[in-house]
């Protein structure tokens, strides 16, 4: 990942302008689409059908096995308790482990000094190599930087014993001054949280003396000149807005869990709730100085990830404890640890300034984001960058755009990857700001957007704003207009009726949304497929199904190519010993990247099917096609079943060869899905209380390969987006102690308080995606905060730009008016 830190000089600006035609040329509208990738709805046998999720039956019978469910397979399994810092900032001066170690059934107590515990710096971020995150973590820490830093661990016969022993540890600290606010943290007098000499793999712009983890910026055009011009001209308006978002918890259903042991070949085997088995294997190899070949990471069913499992949290401690105790060890985090010691969505403060013409054309956008990394930096630079580079492409036609992001350390919990990856924070600012422009110019907010927004055939340059080279992304599919039209109709934008009571005001708000499909030029997915005698297939991919149904979609893609029902494609869960390589389940990449690898692998296998069928039917391969579990000659109509081919290929007289296929996929393309979020709200102007009547989200994810699963993504993400908009997030006292310790303290909506939702699928065709598909898992999490803030603004005229949006804040703003 590259980026610029230096301010753009006039010279580079000139280069950018001059090179635009080269970027246009390098990204032609035409795309050489694979044959049979574009199928009319009636031609699709398996894709875009509501196929049953392949693990559905074992989930409803309780037989689906998650990491902790494997515990019973290890009769001598020990369990662990992690001992965490009680203070926000300081150093552990002494740990007396003697009382704990002397307890019956305690197998080991480890501290940073234990030989089994590596003392190398690393990052927990499960990213490509080398990770674009600072190596600032140690498995266990003497120097502690937030309440929750792991300082020791106990492994014992069972969890209760481990917990009792953990309480017997006598820990002494020297406490340091702590800082909890990003603005305070960058001041010269603020306590310094990291020693730069103790951190490796510094990220761009790092300035640890000011607690800055990373600082990146980029510019297109000349923003200062645009603002200077606006000062001179009456027909240009300058608008400035500020936005703020809190810590949000993933609330993953399954707490992070790892079982680590040595297998019968004396290799390290981990069964772990991870989104990134391959990155984890590589990172453990580096951290423990163990060859990659001696580590196996198996992914069982996963109780959801949402980004929280895009990294190593329990794996290193589990592996160290298994060595220390010389037996299998399970580390299962508690819900309390989930809330404050694992990972969260980073808080952000964003300011946005714009120059706009009287008729609503954007001339300049100047965006500045300061995010709170908390104590360590996994995903800090990349998520902070995404705050701008994800949403800004909506308005890539703006001739002058500048974006700067700063990730700042504080003594609060560690931020990480979280569904949306910075985009929700950025969308609140960008889409809230658009409504402020519309209000200022007295334009309809949809009309304002329509004048400026990106559309099909356009070149997006804004997503490359932080790159140090010319970059463009051709938009080959964009259904925004239809998303807006369908969402507008569904929410009733044009026929809102005001309530009879004078103090109640009803209005709709909206926001546009955008994401990507994988990290361009970075991610690699691979697949291998092999046929059984009966014409069924076993598909091995590194696609990491963490709940959304990736395995099902992979089976559908292969089945579409091979002419079989999806139930005849058995997908093996990701396992580093078995599956082809994959970067993992993140960045909205699985369907788009790994799905394309699966399609190519299936086509490869189909080539072998045709070779056999050609001999068996005495027909040229060019005359053959697949349908109904058979290869058919389009000339004669004669067919041979896949089962016949299966037996012939394995036991036949002429040629024996296993029908298999394999493929990899990596691409510079990352087509954005699009969507329009609408919220219909009534606000009580006397109390600030509000009621949401409906939340409508219309999404363009290309061809929806499984509409049931797409709707599930949209509805689940809207739920999270609503909670980000209205929930308190995670709160702390003035000592940095978390006050949100469990679900009881956290505003996660239940069936009783989740407002109604409507999801709409708008089909487009993305020529670079498998059967026309783009991503969908992250994008719907971006829309509710700006759409609700905009709806409240339109209902009662006040803006709540700092989340959460609460009756108290609305009331206070109304009182100020």
């Amino acid at each position, binding site marked *: 990942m590259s980026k610029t830190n230096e301010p753009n000089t006039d010279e580079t600006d000139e280069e950018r302008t001059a090179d635009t035609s080269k970027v246009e040329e390098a990204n032609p509208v035409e795309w050489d689409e694979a044959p049979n990738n574009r199928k009319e*709805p*009636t031609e699709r046998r398996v894709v*875009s*059908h*509501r196929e*049953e*999720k392949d693990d*559905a*039956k*074992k*989930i*409803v*019978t*309780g*037989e*689906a*096995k*998650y990491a*902790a*469910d494997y*515990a*019973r397979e290890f009769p001598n399994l020990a369990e662990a308790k992690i001992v965490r810092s009680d203070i926000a900032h300081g150093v552990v001066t002494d740990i007396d482990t003697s009382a704990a170690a002397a307890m019956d059934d305690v197998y080991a107590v480890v501290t940073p000094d234990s030989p089994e515990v590596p003392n190398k710096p690393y990052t927990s971020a499960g990213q490509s190599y080398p990770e674009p995150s600072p190596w600032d973590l140690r498995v266990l820490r003497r120097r502690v930087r937030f309440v929750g830093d792991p300082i020791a661990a106990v492994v014992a016969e069972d969890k*209760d014993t481990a917990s009792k022993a953990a309480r017997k540890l006598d820990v002494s600290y020297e406490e340091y001054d702590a800082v909890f606010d990003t603005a305070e943290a960058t001041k010269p007098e603020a306590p310094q949280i990291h020693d730069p000499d103790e951190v490796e793999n510094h990220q761009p712009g790092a300035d640890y003396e000011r607690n800055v983890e990373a600082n990146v910026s980029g510019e297109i055009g000349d923003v200062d000149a645009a603002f200077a011009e606006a000062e001179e001209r009456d027909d240009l308006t300058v608008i400035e807005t500020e936005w703020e978002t809190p810590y949000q918890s*993933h*609330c993953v*259903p*399954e*707490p992070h869990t790892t079982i680590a042991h040595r297998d019968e070949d004396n290799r390290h085997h981990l069964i772990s709730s991870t989104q990134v088995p391959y990155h984890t294997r590589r990172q453990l190899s580096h951290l423990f100085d163990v060859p990659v070949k001696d580590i196996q990471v198996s992914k069982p*069913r996963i*109780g*959801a990830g*949402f980004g929280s499992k895009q990294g190593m949290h329990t794996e290193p401690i589990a592996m160290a404890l298994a060595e220390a105790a010389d037996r299998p060890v399970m580390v*299962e985090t*508690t*819900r309390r640890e989930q809330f404050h010691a694992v990972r969260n969505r980073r808080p952000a403060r964003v300011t946005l300034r714009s120059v706009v013409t009287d008729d609503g054309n954007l001339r300049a956008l100047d965006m500045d984001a300061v995010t709170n990394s908390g104590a360590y930096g996994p995903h800090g630079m990349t998520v902070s960058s995404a705050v701008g580079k994800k949403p800004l492409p909506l308005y890539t036609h703006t001739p002058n755009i500048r974006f700067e992001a700063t990730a700042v350390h504080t003594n609060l919990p560690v931020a990480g990857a979280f569904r949306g990856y910075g985009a929700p924070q950025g969308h609140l600012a960008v889409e809230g700001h658009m409504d402020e422009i519309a209000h200022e110019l007295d334009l309809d907010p949809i009309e304002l957007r329509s004048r400026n927004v990106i559309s099909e055939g356009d070149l997006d340059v804004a997503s490359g704003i932080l790159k140090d080279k010319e970059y463009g992304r051709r938009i080959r599919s964009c259904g925004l207009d239809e998303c807006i039209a369908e969402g507008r109709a569904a929410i009733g934008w044009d026929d809102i009726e005001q309530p009879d009571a004078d103090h109640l005001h009803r209005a709709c708000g909206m926001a546009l949304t955008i994401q990507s499909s994988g990290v361009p030029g970075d991610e690699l997915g691979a697949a291998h497929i092999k046929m059984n005698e009966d014409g069924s297939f076993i598909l091995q991919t590194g696609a990491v199904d*963490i*709940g*959304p*149904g990736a395995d099902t979609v992979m089976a559908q893609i292969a089945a579409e190519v091979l002419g079989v*029902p999806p139930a005849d494609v058995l997908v093996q869960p990701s396992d580093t010993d078995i599956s082809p390589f994959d970067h993992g389940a993140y960045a909205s990449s699985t369907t788009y990247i790994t799905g394309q690898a699966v399609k190519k692998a299936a086509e490869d296998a189909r080539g072998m099917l045709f070779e056999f069928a050609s001999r068996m039917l005495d027909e040229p391969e060019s005359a053959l096609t697949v349908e109904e579990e058979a290869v058919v000659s389009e000339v004669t109509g004669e067919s041979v079943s896949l089962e016949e081919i299966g037996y012939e290929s394995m036991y036949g007289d002429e040629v024996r060869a296993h029908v298999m296929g394999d493929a990899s996929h990596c691409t510079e393309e990352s087509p954005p899905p699009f969507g329009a979020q609408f919220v219909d709200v009534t606000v009580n102007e006397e109390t600030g209380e509000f009621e949401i009547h409906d939340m409508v989200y219309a999404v363009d994810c290309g061809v929806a390969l499984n*509409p049931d*699963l797409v*709707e*599930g993504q949209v*509805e*689940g993400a*809207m*739920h*999270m987006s609503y909670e980000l908009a209205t929930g308190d997030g995670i709160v702390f006292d003035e000592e940095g102690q978390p006050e949100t310790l*469990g*679900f*009881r303290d956290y505003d*996660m909506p*239940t*069936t*009783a*308080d*989740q407002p109604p*939702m409507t*999801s709409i699928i708008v089909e487009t065709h993305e020529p670079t995606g498998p059967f026309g598909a783009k991503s969908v898992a992250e994008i719907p999490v971006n829309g509710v905060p700006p759409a609700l803030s905009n709806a409240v603004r339109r209902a009662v005229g006040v803006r709540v730009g700092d989340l959460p949006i609460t009756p108290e804040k609305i009331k206070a703003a109304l009182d100020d008016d």
Partner: protein
Amino acid sequence: MEIDLTLNDDDVTFEAARSDTLLDVLRDNGYTGAKRGCDTGNCGFCTVIVDGEPVKSCIRPASQLEGADVETIESLGTQDDLGPVQSAFVDNAALQCGFCIPGMIMRSKVLLEETPNPDEAEIRDALSENLCRCTGYEKIIDAVQDASTRMSGEADVAADGGYPDGDDAGCGCGYPDGGCGK
């Protein structure tokens, strides 16, 4: 200590420590359908049925279970022969990661036994102690309504689980009825 109870219609005796909860005992004895999500009774992933009532097994001390009648997800249908609530969850795509689903199904089962034809508000009220982070609850509510219909015998259910008939016949994928094989 030893605890005698009825588990899924069988008389069983479990060994338990004094500090064990019902969830500990179930999972230690291979009944892992109930999931551990919080250990504080706030997520509902561990919901089982005790003496006809939905119970969060992570906060029910095992010592209180002597003579109790306990039903877990393992007592419902098999993958080859799903019960009506289970098949409604499958057919309505009312699950994603699945970690909350066994508890959600047990809670729904009690609701439908007590209130065979609940309206949406009743369903939302009854399920409000069972969290789900993946679905936004929309399809779960649909599934419980569908299960209610199935249990009332008002709908034909395809042998394979199939899609329920309704106003929107077919599976809604844009094909003519049956065109996609559903």
